[in-house]
């Protein structure tokens, strides 16, 4: 039982375990007082306890009574609710995670006659929610920080550096239209002053989620701001009716529940999950691909629009016959036009058949082509003419596992989990039995226990062992397409370069296709043609995780449209190009157009680690703006980050970054173009690191603490400022990248971006 006193001290309110609350008068005599009012707000059936209550007075006489819990036990006992009662208005705010605590922001003037509450701040297990109590309808306040990253589980991320202002503004404007249901109230919590300098450029982090949404985050500074949320669900027909959301507040609904907060871990259909994202910052084209083989190409539109999404199917099995896909079905599409809100609107949908998860995606906005790969093969789609250019099956005919889809494996995992749980439970049971020595234990049970004991012993005797076997062409999932890459290079002869598409598989095969893209003026009239030009089989057969073409100056080829927008030098087409193939085990440079091996770095043979992520990072000099170099940023399965020089493949530096046991952290890591990176340290928190001395993002702030208490606080404050100054200085002093970095040891400036689980 908890109680709360009214401001003038004349009355107080108590709440009870049976879901009731009572108002009491306060009198100076010792007689037992009579309650003013006793109420079970969600009666008459048994209710859960009310664990915390506020009684806030207002000028107009009607108080706010705000309490946590008290829901009818039978039908709503599992809800995490906070109810606000103000006269005839009553709303039970329904949180998707457990409420840890809440408080009311009210007039802080000690002389004020009334509380006049302005906002309610609720700390739920997964997020912080602020509700505006001044505005009619009690809307939520848009959080400027502590945004919930994991509203739906993050399935992939994609980072785009240096967004052009135009695109940035359009994304923000699309996002602001989505935020109209938020209150206009300024954020009521003062968390100090951010003294970090303005970020030097606009960076976007795109996160793909299990529920088929893509969230656009402003990742330029310390805090991630949600700019815009894109949903791909409208394209498809799913079991869940989009109108059937919990926000509808029926007139005669009781209790008057209203869902608040953004955390929603339940996905209606796991097939909607986003697996790959590619955004072209120059053209505004966005490609997203998902769990059920769906590939969507979208365009940014500033207005709402209703249109038909062109739909194509890519049969990746082609001539392979007699196979049956045992995985999930493909997503059903909506017939007829679909209404899309302002923002990225899909205009093309390609569905892979079988509908296996899309494992790689590449978009070339200049050629208007999108390439996608699954565990069965890859395809190329012309999104200008809306025509499938070609598909290539990469599946090994004997690879049954890849064909059957993920289901069989999931089942076996589940089964083994279940078995191990059972084993633990049984062993517990049996040990209890032995201790208790109860007579009624049947012989069968005893035999069972003995069997379990034996099994356990056997497990202890057989240590963890690893099989040593060469990779072979017959291994499973060799056809899994790991990487796709567009390049304008010398594929066939050294005199003419042409557009090309490169694909790398899990079995160490690289396919190169020569593309013929008609010139712009005949782009709609002539078809895009593709022809296989090369197929390279790496003898070590390790999965190919990266393909890159270096130009005549050994610089990686620029991104599509980068040169057209004067943001990159045009590539050197005079000197001979080189092909870099990165497998999990080796880095290899080949000459082009005649493929001969030039040099290599056998990472696994030397160090026993494998490449998990690789990207080209540009490292600029701190001292001069006009000098920078390109290197490979590599994340290994041990969580180390290595910088490897281009084109000579020399290891420059190694830094342990992520714990090697943190598999999801390693899997979630994304590198930026300028040597920074993000990885998940929990489902809801990204950690940011920088490998470049030029681009550091540090959390720097000052918190003004009222100097009413001891001078202890003042001391703290200056200490913080000192620390901030120190970190700034070290950021500057580490000048030339390379030796200085090693010396200073401040290579990684870890900054917690989203610290809300605390």
């Amino acid at each position, binding site marked *: 039982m908890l109680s709360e006193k009214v401001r003038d001290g004349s009355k107080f309110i108590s709440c009870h375990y049976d879901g009731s609350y009572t108002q009491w008068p306060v009198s100076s005599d010792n007689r037992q007082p009579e309650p003013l009012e006793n109420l079970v707000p969600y009666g008459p059936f048994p209710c859960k306890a009310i664990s915390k209550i506020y009684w806030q007075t207002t000028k107009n006489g009607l108080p706010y009574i705000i309490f946590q819990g008290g829901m009818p036990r039978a039908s709503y006992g599992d809800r995490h609710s906070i109810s606000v009662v103000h006269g005839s208005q009553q709303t039970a705010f329904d949180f998707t995670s457990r409420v840890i605590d809440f408080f009311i922001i009210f007039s802080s003037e000690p002389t004020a006659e009334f509380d006049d509450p302005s906002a309610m701040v609720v700390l739920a297990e997964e997020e912080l929610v602020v509700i505006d109590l001044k505005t009619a309808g009690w809307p939520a306040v848009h959080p400027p920080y502590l945004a919930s990253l994991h509203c739906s589980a993050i399935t992939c991320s994609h980072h785009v550096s240096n967004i052009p202002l135009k695109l940035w503004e359009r994304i923000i404007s699309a996002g602001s239209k989505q935020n109209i249901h938020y209150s206009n109230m300024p954020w009521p919590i003062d968390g100090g002053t951010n003294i970090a300098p303005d970020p030097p450029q606009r960076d976007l982090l795109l996160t793909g989620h299990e529920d088929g949404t893509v969230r656009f985050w402003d990742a330029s500074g310390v805090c991630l701001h949600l700019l815009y949320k894109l949903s791909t669900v409208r394209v498809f027909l799913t079991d869940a009716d989009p109108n059937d959301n919990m926000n509808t507040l029926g007139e005669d609904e009781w209790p008057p529940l209203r869902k608040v907060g953004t955390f929603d871990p339940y996905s209606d259909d796991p097939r909607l999950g986003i697996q790959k994202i590619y955004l072209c910052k120059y053209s505004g084209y966005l490609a997203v691909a998902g769990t059920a083989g769906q590939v969507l190409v979208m365009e940014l539109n500033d207005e709402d629009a209703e249109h038909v999404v062109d739909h194509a199917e890519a049969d990746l099995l082609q001539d392979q016959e007699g196979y049956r896909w045992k995985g999930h079905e493909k997503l059903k599409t909506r017939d007829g036009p679909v209404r899309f809100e302002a923002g990225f609107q899909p205009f093309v949908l390609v569905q892979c058949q079988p509908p296996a998860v899309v494992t790689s995606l590449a978009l070339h906005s200049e050629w208007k082509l999108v390439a996608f790969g699954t565990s069965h093969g890859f395809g190329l789609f012309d999104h200008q003419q809306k025509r499938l250019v070609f598909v290539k099956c990469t599946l090994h005919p004997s690879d049954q596992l890849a064909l059957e889809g993920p289901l069989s494996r999931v089942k076996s995992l589940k089964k083994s989990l279940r078995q191990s749980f059972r084993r633990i439970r049984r062993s517990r049971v049996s040990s209890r039995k032995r201790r208790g020595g109860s007579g009624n234990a049947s012989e069968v049970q005893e035999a069972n226990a003995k069997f379990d004991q034996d099994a356990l012993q056997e497990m202890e005797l057989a240590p*963890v062992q690893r099989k040593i076997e060469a990779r072979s062409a017959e291994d499973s999932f060799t056809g899994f397409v790991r990487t796709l890459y567009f390049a304008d290079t010398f594929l066939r002869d050294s005199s003419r370069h042409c557009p090309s598409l490169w694909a790398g598989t899990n079995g160490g095969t690289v396919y190169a296709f020569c593309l013929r893209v008609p010139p712009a003026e005949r782009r709609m009239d002539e078809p895009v043609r593709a022809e296989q030009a090369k197929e390279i089989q790496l003898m070590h057969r390790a999965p190919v995780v990266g393909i890159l073409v270096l130009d005549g100056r050994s610089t990686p080829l620029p991104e599509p449209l980068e040169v057209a927008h004067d943001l990159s030098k045009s590539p050197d087409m005079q000197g001979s190009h080189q092909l870099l193939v990165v497998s999990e085990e*080796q880095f290899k440079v080949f000459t082009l157009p005649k493929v001969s091996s030039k040099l290599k770095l056998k990472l696994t043979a030397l160090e026993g680690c494998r490449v998990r992520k690789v990207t080209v990072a540009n490292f600029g000099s701190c001292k001069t703006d006009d000098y920078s170099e390109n290197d490979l940023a590599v994340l290994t399965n041990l969580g180390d980050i290595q910088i490897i020089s281009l084109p000579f493949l020399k290891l420059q530096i190694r830094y342990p970054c992520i714990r090697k046991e943190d598999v999801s952290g390693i899997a979630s890591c994304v590198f930026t173009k300028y040597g920074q990176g993000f990885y998940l340290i929990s489902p809801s928190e990204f950690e940011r690191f920088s490998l470049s001395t030029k681009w550091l993002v540090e959390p720097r702030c000052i918190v003004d603490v009222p100097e009413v208490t001891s001078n202890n606080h003042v001391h703290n404050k200056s200490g913080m400022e000192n620390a901030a100054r120190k970190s700034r200085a070290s950021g500057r002093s580490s000048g030339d990248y390379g030796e200085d970095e090693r010396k200073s040891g401040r290579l990684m400036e870890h900054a917690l971006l989203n610290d809300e689980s605390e």
Partner: protein
Amino acid sequence: MECLVMFGAEFRRFSLERSKPGKFEEFYGLLQHVHKIPNVDVLVGYTDIHGDLLPINNDDNYHKAVSTANPLLRIFIQRKEDADYSAFGTDTMTRKKNVLSNVLRPDNHKKKPHIVISMPQDFRPVSSIIDVDILPETHRRVRLYKYGTDKPLGFYIRDGSSVRVTPHGLEKVPGIFISRLVPGGLAQSTGLLAVNDEVLEVNGIEVSGKSLDQVTDMMIANSRNLIITVRPANQRNNVVRNSRTSGSSGQSTESSLPSSTPNILANFLQGEEESDEEDIIIEDSGEPQQIPKAAPTSESLESLTQIELHESTQNGFLPSSEMNLNHSAGSVSMEYEVQDAEHKSLEEDGTIITL
């Protein structure tokens, strides 16, 4: 099916029914006939899909040759009296130039004639013990030639602990051990590896301080040409060196080191080269071909090491008696010295990898 036959500088082409290759005797007669050498004893060899020069001397390997020829069967004939047996074997054709010159102009190479006891070159090596001369007697360096065989490597490794002699006395340190041999696998069939042997090095890289998963990845990365150094659980079958009996030879440990270094280097190089079986490329849906090495910028160095390598190929298998004599008894201090030398050679190896 087309056959291309080379005998000295002479070429002959003829076709052969793939489905009915006939017997080796007939084929042999046919070869003698097309080259008009009816009464000359010759050795017949062919290049298989991996580029190895392999002998044809019975029906079985003749049929194998015919069935694997794709699409052309390349055949080399040598006169028996000036035959170079060493030309046969794994990876002989990757050093094509040398082999060809050996086969085509055998007189140019004033090599010591081999004493032919049997013809070990008729077989592909599957394993060998190497570096016996430089390793402590308690260790064994085993090379498994996965390349070219269908046999699985067939072994498992596990974590464990072993006792080491350290400056602070005996210490228990974590180690990696062979935990299981698959019956019929390459590892078991060699007889050189056994359960509970401690793995010390993988292709010249020490495994101490590395996790089981790291060592697994290293072994798989080197699986085409795996060289593992083990401390056998059973120490009774160790090679006993000559030096042990002539233990008090005047040679000092130091002086023996320089002479052994090039040999290790050669062995490592050889390992490097052979694991280097080239990736395969198919151009314009044509024939699969091995990807050649791009012309290195520092040609002189490259060709130099190539020669050295070829010269020392035979040395790797049987340590020359000269080398053995140079060693004194396997004292503890020498063990450290040798490891030092290994490190040196490793560094050199490293530069060549990334050259």
